[in-house]
């Protein structure tokens, strides 16, 4: 059984049906990516999984347990951590405070300290800026901070929404490299990206979304070579 199972979810914004029956599965230790154009429903899918939105129909199961009726904070505490789109760090707090907030649900103070040290090894730039306000970091650094903060929660599944958005090409590569490293540490990743070639390149499997439906799925390499995907997203 897959670690994360989404079965036929329908999500509405008022009367508009944003997701028209999405089903997908993510196995433990996989990187799975959702690609598709604007308004295809990629971010909405992530928001439904993390509990920020509630599907009107369908089910979401994590490690065999239904997530229906749980609040976003409970889902996060259970090990599904969402990094929303944009550079959503706490700009008015320091880098250090941001990292500590990542471990908000954890009580094991000593392990938290070790994890923080590990994050600072993984992202050495953050160590230099530990006491600085997060809002003063550069775009790339903010994205690193968002990832490091999410990892502080020791997630089993990381939901990443457009981590490369608005970054310079060189930084984009760096971000994807980081995603790979995080995955190697045993974290399962569900990745939403506009940058389809990079995302499909790193992912084990991918789903292609179009106006609230999944139109194609398969191993990342295959999708990358698929003629339809190429024409639609890769130019």
């Amino acid at each position: 059984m897959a670690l994360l199972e989404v079965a036929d979810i329908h999500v509405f914004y008022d009367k508009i049906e944003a997701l028209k029956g999405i089903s997908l599965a993510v196995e433990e230790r996989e990187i799975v990516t959702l690609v598709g154009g604007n308004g295809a429903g990629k971010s909405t899918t992530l928001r439904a999984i993390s509990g920020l939105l509630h599907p009107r129909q369908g089910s979401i199961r994590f490690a065999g347990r239904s997530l229906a009726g749980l609040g976003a904070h409970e889902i996060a505490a259970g090990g599904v951590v969402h990094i929303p789109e944009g550079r959503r760090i706490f700009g008015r707090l320091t880098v250090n405070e941001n990292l500590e907030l990542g471990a908000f649900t954890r009580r094991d103070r000593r392990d938290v300290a070790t994890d923080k040290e590990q994050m600072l090894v993984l992202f050495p730039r953050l160590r230099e800026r530990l006491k600085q306000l997060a809002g003063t970091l550069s775009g790339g650094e903010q994205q690193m901070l968002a990832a490091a903060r999410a990892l502080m929660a020791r997630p089993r599944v990381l939901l990443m929404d457009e981590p490369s958005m608005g970054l310079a090409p060189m930084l984009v590569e760096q971000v994807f490299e980081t995603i790979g490293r995080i995955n190697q540490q045993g974290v399962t990743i569900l990745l939403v990206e506009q940058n389809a070639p990079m995302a499909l390149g790193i992912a084990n499997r991918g789903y292609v979304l179009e106006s609230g439906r999944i139109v194609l799925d398969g191993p990342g390499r295959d999708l990358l070579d698929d003629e339809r995907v190429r024409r639609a997203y890769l130019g």
Partner: protein
Amino acid sequence: MMRRAALIGLAFGAGAVHLAAVGVLLAMHQRWIIVEALTLGQAALLLLAGGAGAMTRGPVMGALAGAAAGVPVVALLAAMSLVPLNSIFIALSHDLFNMLTLGVGLAAGVAILIGGGAIAGLVGVLLSNSSQMVRRAIFPGAISVVVAGVFQELIQLMLQQYEGPVGDFRDFIYTWEGLSLQGAIAIFVLAALLSEVFGFIWRMRAERTASHDHRRERMVRAGIALLILVLLPMLGGSYVGQVLMLVGLYILMGMGLNLEVGLAGLLDLGFVAFFAVGAYSTALLTAGSAHALMHLPYWAAMPVSVLLAVAVGVLFGLPVLGVRGDYLAVATMGLGEIVRVIVQSDFAAPLLGGAQGILEIPKPSIGNFVLGNPVSLFYLTLVASAVAAFVAWRLENSRLGRAWEALRDDEDVAQALGINLVRAKLLAYGLGAAFAGLAGSIFATMLTSVYPSSFQLLISINVLALIIVGGMGSLPGVVLGSIVLIGLPELLREFGEYRYLFYGAVLIVMMRLRPEGLWPSDVRQRELHAEDETLALDAGTDAVPAQPR
């Protein structure tokens, strides 16, 4: 350049005309700063001309701006002598005319206004370009003279019991009317000297200890402020005690609202409701009148009142859980008004006394000692504030405090990190309400009666204004904000009707010049001056490469 200077001057002059037309200028003219030499009103005019000058560059432009500031006033004088304006603007009276012309007639008065404006503008621009050393002498000196002059009654009252050297000093600087010219000069020189000496010592220390301990220095300043606060009512008597007690109540409320607005980012314009709940609870639990439900001693009623305020705070939070931003301000304002309307209604009158209120609330007592006079009640407020400040300080640095800051910055991300939004928000309202409930409880026993009319929307706005002026999220800021926005207007009673004009002006000036507040929290200061700090840090990392730990 010239055009700009003239425009600045005209704008400041228009400000002076405004002050004259609403009547505050003449009211200020009734108060001497220095007897027979300078009134508060004249000082305000000089300040406006000087301010216009300070915003320009170069002595010529400064003088031009200052002179231009006189032009609208001259135009007002001309209009006043041609048309009987005071049938519309009652403040534009003959007395005002005499004040503005110094009683020497129109022609000479015009010359004095323009010439005086030019000189003031020149002084303004010279001061703004002068060295730190000069400014460190002049500003404290001038401010001390104004304080000593304007509050002469109060200060004389405090000093009147002394004989010997203090008495001699008092007789030297004050006549029975107010500050004398020789006294003003003495105070100016003294304050300027002290400022220079302390500034010098401070710089020496800063040089010796390369990284001066910012935190400790602030603690020392806070400690001195506290000591003054403790000693002042003992010296100043019951009037000062009463004013300080009011300041104390607002400090309590400010600390509570600070948790909601400053930390959790939940704008609340209905804060007065919690104050009312605290006051009415205490009234119902202790009063000697027919409305009382019980006759508890005050010390038992106070904690119950606080708990009831917490309960109402949580209830209050429930309907507005999903409301954000501007809508939250409107929604909370409505809830606050609902509480007042219910209390005032005939429907609740059998229980709460309606518009007649509840009377005969006893004063608290310790053993046989009744805390009857304002000074002893002030000390009660002080102790309550100290306890509350400690709680607020601990909360800020707690897990809950961090959670509040997180949801203030980004609710979605806060949830995604496992913060329970509902719980955090309700706790913010509940704990914020506790502070207001405590303030309300003391307020009830201070007045020995409660009326619905005491719990107007304006109180909520005052509390919000004082934490904005003091500095969002900063505890010492709350104290400073209360003193400036609550204490000062109480001491300047005769300008009472201009209180909100003063508030508005202070808020606008603050937002322009010092948006982080008078005494900002570390975070706000870092945020608003983040740019310079980043530069400094970058420079720092260049000089010293990061050390691996």
